[in-house]
Each structure stands twice: as C-alpha cells, then as structure tokens.
C-alpha cells in the first residue's frame, strides 16, 4: 500500500505565515459500488472521487474563541486563499467559550496502530466488490422461495490527513463498507403475501465468509415475517440482540456523554448512577475494525479507550479540544467530524464538518449470561426483538421506540412463534430513580458482536413497554 495522500500538508504549505492556531483536515476518497436487482447487476459505480479539506482558524475575541471554518475542494493557491478569507470572516462572528485551546502537536506515538484497512479491498476494490456480490448471490442458491430482491455493496477507500499550526502532520488510510440486502420470501401453497428481511450494515471490511450462515438467518426471518402473529401488549421482558442495540444505544450515549451536552447543561451528571451495579461501558477509539476507530481523532489527538460508565456510574465524558478548554479538561481524543443525519457521510465526507465531541465505538463488555439460547432461558414470557423499523433514539431525552418488524415470542425459556407489528420503546439513560434500559438490565450475554458503532452481547431487559394488538403477556419477570 502506498503512503496515504498528504493533502492536508500540501494545503498547510500554502498557508504561508498564517497566524495560528489553525488546523487542516483533508480527505481523498474513492468509492466503488455494485447494485443488484434480484440476481442481476443493474448498476456499477466508481471510482467516485472526492478530494477536499476543511480549514479551521481559532481567534481570540473578547475572552472567547472565534472559530473560523471553511471547507473546499480546491487545493490550489487561489482556492486555499479563498478558504482562508472566508474562515477569517466567519471567525469574527463566531463565539465559543474557550480561552486558550491547545491543538495537539507532534506525531502520534508509534505502536498505537488500529486495524481499519481491508487490504484486499484496498488493492483491488472493483474485483473485491464483484467477488463479494458473487458470494452473496451464491449464498442464496438452492433456497426455494427466497430471493435477494435488491442489494448493494459500497466500498469507500479514504486517505485522511491532518496538519496544524502546532506542527502536527499525520496521515492514515481506512476503508468503509456499506452493505444492504433485502431478502424476500414468497410462494408456497397458502397464498400468503411475501415477507421481507431488510439487512443493512456499515463496517470496515468485506468478509464473505459468514454470508452462507447470514443468508440462512435472513431467509428464515423473511419467511417468519409472512406468518408472524400479533405482538403482545403491556410491560414485557425483552431480549435485544446486538443488531437492534446498535440502532439504539450509541446515539444516546454519544450525546449524553459528550462535552457539548455538558457545556449546555444537558446530558448525564458526573458520578451519577445510570446503570446497574457492575456495569462498565467504554468508548473505544482503537477497536480493530470499529467504524469510529482511527489512530488519531479528527483533530489529531491520539485515540484511546474512554471509560464512560464504571460500576454503573458516570465515569468519563467525551472531549474535543475546544470543549476541553471551555470546561477545564483535556481532550479525550473524541473530536469527530460526524453527522447525525447521514451515516455514510460520517465516514467519508468529514472534511465538510467541524469537529465536535463524539463517541467512536461503544463497547458493552461480555457478561455471564452465556449464549443467546441461555439468555432466552431466563425468560418465562417475553419477546425477542430481531428488528425494529427505526428505533430513532433521541440523545436529549434518551428515548427510543419503533415498530417491531420481526420478533419472536419467548415462552418458558424457548423461542416460540414469530411476532410482528406494534411498537417497543423506552429510555436508554434516565435520571436517578427513573427506569431505563441500562438500569433494568437483567442479563448480559457472553458473546459480544461488533455491529456499526456498537460492540455488545445480547441483553435481557427486565421490562419495556410494548404496544401490540395481541393479548397481554404475563408480567412476571425472572
């Protein structure tokens, strides 16, 4: 692999004698895509090439910091000059309550490497995608009444570089893979309408090895959706696998533990109790294959593991450079140029956004609950939620909720009939004394999986409100 693009350094060289503090965050990305309609390739895209940088100036104004920011896709002398002029203009208007923000300097320590590049994908992106698509289709061969109605796989090869007025110059490559597969089950003598399981994931690598097993699971979920019964109504013990938790937990914790919330009087309170005794949750910026992992954050501060919750209590918050200064702390390497709206933009168009405190990968460590089957054994009457339409967690209130697209009734410690419809919801983090997902954790499974920006085992929640049109479940909890 060749050295990653040093665009940030090339832009920094054009800044001449620009007064600091300033930093430049740059990306060169190449994107490749394959889109399938059924078993046919309907569109190939790539390379989709995007090269750009964001220039940030920090200016002392009336005891505060004026932040000037401008992004550009033009690295020429003229383009950089225009970006500087715009950034200086905006710095005069903007106010942030930091007084002496310190940008990181020097090179990050060697040896804190993190695996975030799929080498086969990097060296042969089109061929790797074609191989993955072929393996995906092969995984469905011989399955009667099941077809991937559409699917896509998108790979982005990104070269990130950062330079600043304190002398930092760093560059690293990373890969991002987005997969989407809609599996349809149809046919049969009963004349039932078709059922679907819609899988999406964002990760760091193309790995076709688990596809046969995944295809079997997806096919079963799609078939079960065709004859699923009603979801019960009431407060119900609920088992949530990592696929579902990934759509709930990170979005709440990233806000609640972010210093931006703290600065504004929102979010969790220091040392407050937010989870069960013994619960530890960390944000790991160096987790191999983590979608938020990188050797340094988007301001150049070395990444690390951050203990957010220790023994059920708030332990550490997430700081970038500016919020650290405003609150008298040090950056935790959590300066991220992410977007809450567009997940794919969070990993390949970062140069268009300013850094804010954010989480990398939320890690809920393995507990002693055992396998999924052993977690289920702990439930007499409840439900396993396999997929929620969109849990849409709200960071501020901590609430989440959405329609159960496919789930299973649990009866006497075993998975029973499939259920569908109705909503399940709750609160991830609540003030002391109020019920919440982290406070009502009953069993923590022993087999964590990395899904999106969460690594977690399956969790059993004592009870969550479920609104279905089926009869109420027995409310007894183990």
């Amino acid at each position: 692999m060749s050295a990653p693009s040093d665009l940030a350094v090339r832009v920094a060289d054009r800044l001449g004698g620009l007064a600091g503090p300033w930093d430049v965050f740059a990306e060169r990305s190449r994107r490749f895509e394959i889109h399938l309609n059924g078993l046919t390739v309907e569109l190939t895209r790539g390379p989709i090439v995007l090269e750009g940088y964001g220039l940030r100036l920090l200016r002392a104004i009336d005891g505060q910091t004026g932040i000037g920011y401008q992004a550009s896709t033009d690295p020429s002398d003229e383009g950089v000059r225009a970006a500087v002029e715009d950034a200086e203009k905006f710095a005069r208007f903007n106010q942030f309550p930091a007084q002496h923000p310190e940008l990181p300097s020097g090179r990050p320590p060697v040896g804190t490497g993190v695996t975030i590049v799929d080498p086969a994908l990097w060296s042969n992106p089109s061929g790797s995608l074609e191989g993955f698509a072929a393996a995906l289709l092969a995984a469905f061969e011989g399955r009667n009444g099941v077809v991937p109605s559409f699917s896509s796989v998108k790979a982005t090869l990104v070269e990130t570089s950062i330079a600043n007025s304190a002398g930092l110059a760093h560059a690293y490559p990373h890969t991002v893979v987005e997969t989407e597969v809609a599996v349809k089950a149809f046919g049969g003598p009963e004349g039932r309408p078709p059922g679907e399981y819609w899988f999406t994931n964002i990760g760091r690598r193309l790995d076709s090895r688990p596809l046969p097993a995944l295809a079997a699971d997806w096919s079963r979920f799609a078939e079960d959706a065709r004859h699923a019964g009603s979801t019960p109504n009431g407060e119900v013990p609920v088992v949530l696998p990592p696929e579902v938790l990934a759509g709930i937990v990170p979005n709440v914790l990233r806000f609640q533990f972010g210093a931006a919330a703290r600065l504004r009087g929102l979010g969790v309170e220091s040392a407050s109790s937010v989870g069960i005794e013994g619960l530890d949750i960390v944000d790991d910026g160096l987790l191999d294959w983590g979608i938020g992992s990188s050797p340094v954050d988007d301001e150049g501060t070395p990444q690390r593991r951050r203990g957010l919750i220790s023994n059920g209590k708030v332990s550490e918050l997430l700081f970038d450079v500016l919020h650290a200064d405003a609150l008298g702390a040090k950056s935790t390497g959590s300066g991220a140029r992410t977007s809450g709206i567009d997940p794919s933009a969070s990993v390949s168009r970062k140069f268009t956004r300013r850094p804010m405190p954010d989480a990398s990968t939320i890690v809920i460590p393995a507990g002693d609950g055992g396998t999924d089957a052993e977690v289920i054994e702990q439930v007499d009457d409840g439900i396993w939620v396999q997929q929620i339409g969109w849990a849409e967690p709200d960071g501020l209130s901590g609430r989440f909720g959405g329609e159960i697209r496919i789930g299973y009734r649990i009866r006497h410690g075993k998975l029973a009939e499939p259920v569908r419809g109705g909503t399940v919801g709750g609160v991830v983090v609540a003030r002391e004394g109020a019920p919440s997902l982290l406070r009502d954790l009953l069993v923590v499974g022993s087999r964590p999986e990395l899904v999106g920006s969460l690594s977690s085992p399956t969790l059993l929640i004592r009870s969550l409100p479920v609104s279905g049109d089926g009869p109420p479940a027995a409310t007894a909890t183990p």
Partner: protein
Amino acid sequence: MTLDSKSLSTAASPPLRGVVFRAWSGTRWVETAVSGLDERALVGAGESLESQLAAGRSGSPPPGPSATTVGSFDTAPRRPMRDLGTEGALAWVREVFRWLTDVPTIKFARVSLNWADEERYYLNTAGANCFQRLNRVHAGVVPVAIENGRSEFDAYSIGRLGGQEALDDISEATARRVSEGARSLLTAKAPPSGLMNVLLDPGTTGTFAHESFGHGTEADQFVRNRSYLQPLLGQTVGPEFLTIVDDGSIPGGWGSIYFDDEGHRSQRTPLVDRGRFVGALHDRGTAFALGATPTGNTRRADFLGQAFVRMTNTSVEPGDWSFDELVSEARDGVLLERWVSGMEDPLGGRMQLKVLKGHRIENGKVTDLVSAMALSGSVLQFLRDIRGIASAEHRYIDAGFCGKGYGDMLPVGDGGTYLLSRALVGPS
C-alpha cells in the same frame, strides 16, 4: 448559522463542484464521478468510464427514450438570502433566540438558519442541455425546558425554495408557542397505548403520505417486485374523498425541482385519485420496464450520489371536514402532533410514524397533553379506515429530508391537513 445558549457558529458549506458521467454498457448503467471541474479530473473520470465500457459486452440499447429538455430555470427570489448578509442573518437568529428564551424554564435553545444556492446542469447525447438554480432556505428552532431534573424539547422548522420571505414563517408568536410547547411537555401525561382512533396533524399526515404510502409508489420497487402496492394499481385503496399526489412543480416547494437528474421536467403525479391507486413514480428505466412515462422523479443527492426514483413534494389533498368535526367524529382517541420521523416498509406495507407530542381525545373533545408516541399498523388498513380529512385552511407542506438506504439525503416536502383514521399507538 447556528446559535445556541453557549455558542454561535457560522460557516459556509464547501463549494462542492463536480461531475458524474453515466453510460449504458449494453447490459447496465456504469457511472464515474469526480469532484472539481479541472480538465485533469474530468479526463480521468472519462477515461475510467471508457475503460469500464470497453470491458463490457455489447447488448441492448439503453432503456427508454432519453430526455431532450433544453432551457435555463432559476428560483430567482425577489429578496435573495445573500442580500441579508451575515450581519442581517445574525440579527434574525439572535432575535428568534431571544423570543424562545424569554419563556420561563427554557434553559437551552438552538436556532439554525441555512440557505444554499444549488446549481445543476444536465446534458446528454440526445441533446438535453438544461440548467437550474435552486435557492433553498431552511430554518429551525429547538427550545429545551428543564425543571426538577426533567428536560423536554419542542421543535419547529420551515423550508422552501425562495429567499428572505421564508423567514416570515417564524414569527415571535410562533417562537413563543414552540417554547411554551416544550415547557408544557414537562407535565405531559403518558400517551395511551393500543388500537384507537388517531387524528393526524398536517405534518404527520404528510409524513404518512411520504413514508408510509409514497415509498411504495416508487417504481424501482415495482421492478424489483418489492412493493405491496404494485398488485393494487387501478384498484380502490381508500375512501372516495382521498387523493394523494407527488408534485415537484409546486412553486417554492421545499422538494420542488425544475427538472430531474435524467433531464425530465418535474410534474404533478396523482398517486391516489378519489380513493383509487392510479400511478407510480418513474425514472426512464422503470417507465420502460412497466410501459409508463418518466414522471420527473429521478434525483441524486449530489454528483456523488446515485440516481434513484425519489419523491418531491408528497401530500394528501384537503377534504371538507372542519377540525372540530373530526375531533367530534373521533370521539375517543388521540391527536398526534409534531411529527418526528417515519419509516417505510415497501414490501410489507407496515408503517411507523413518530410524533413528539399529542393530546387525548375524550368524548369528542381535545383534552390532556401527552408525550411522544409512535404509530404503527398496516398502511392499507389505515387507508381503509380513513373517516375524514380537514379542509384546505389547515393545509401545510412541511420541510423534511429523505434518505434511501444509507444516506443519499434529499429535501422533500410532506404535506396535508388533519386526517382521521385508526391505528396502533405505542411508546416512542
């Protein structure tokens, strides 16, 4: 520009310029794209495309006729946002912030104001050569009320094609009402749960039209045999007074465009006409496959994004009920207000709509305020259960953003008036 209780942030989006090339290989579309308009970048993208085409087999001609639109189209607002200047915009943001935070218990507030001047060219080998300039304005407020350790927020936003006149939609009275909304949520009761009569406010009706119904009318889902609506084309799906349209030609609409990203002019496309499902949204490929005509709904998020069949402004047309008549007709149920989101299920035909708040309806009267709710159920059953739609005086088209799969976010308008039906209500 974003002002909150602790910081002011002003920045210009990067002037992203770029080109996407698309060509038919004989069996599939092939695309390359590049940021920048310099010759080196363009030649490189062109060569990448040619190398892929050379590797492809010969086959059929591209599906459907190419657009031949020629012309230049411009929003041309009378009071462009750029004339407001940074100082003027800042003054507006500060004033709205003051209105929001004058309300007791509002401890935090955020005001955002964004505008974008977007220019799109479309050219093809059939002679299409068209240009459009779209001036989009979007503003939003989020006041947060905090008391006794409990925090609640309300939100309101506006968006349209145009200029400074869009800002008139956020008045002092509006801002204070939103703050009072956040404050009142501090004492809101828990929402009801179960199957009940539901009265949707205009924004929530629009979200239903877009998310729950509209996604099933995107004809790429038909080609994939992935729409529960496909077998129902031409059939009655709702009451005679129900009409749902997608209209990308609404002047000033947040989701309006002059032509789509295949060069076809935007238009008004009836989806449901007096209760009958009559139409789908097409690009040239789906139109060719299904014997229809393109409807001007091919959209890319930008030159880096894929061209899909997408909605523009999707709405339920007004009926002739008054609000009070709908409440009386509901008798018992819940009024859902301030939509948050919706989620499509094109094959299964299920729906998920989330709102920030609502009110109980008891004995034909609007009563207690209740907190966030989610609505679910079968879209077709919901359509069959529609009992009334309010008149045009309540009509409103909200400004939303829609993704397709991961990302590819686009501005879309979702509109309607109050609509009474029946669905499952649960926690959010």
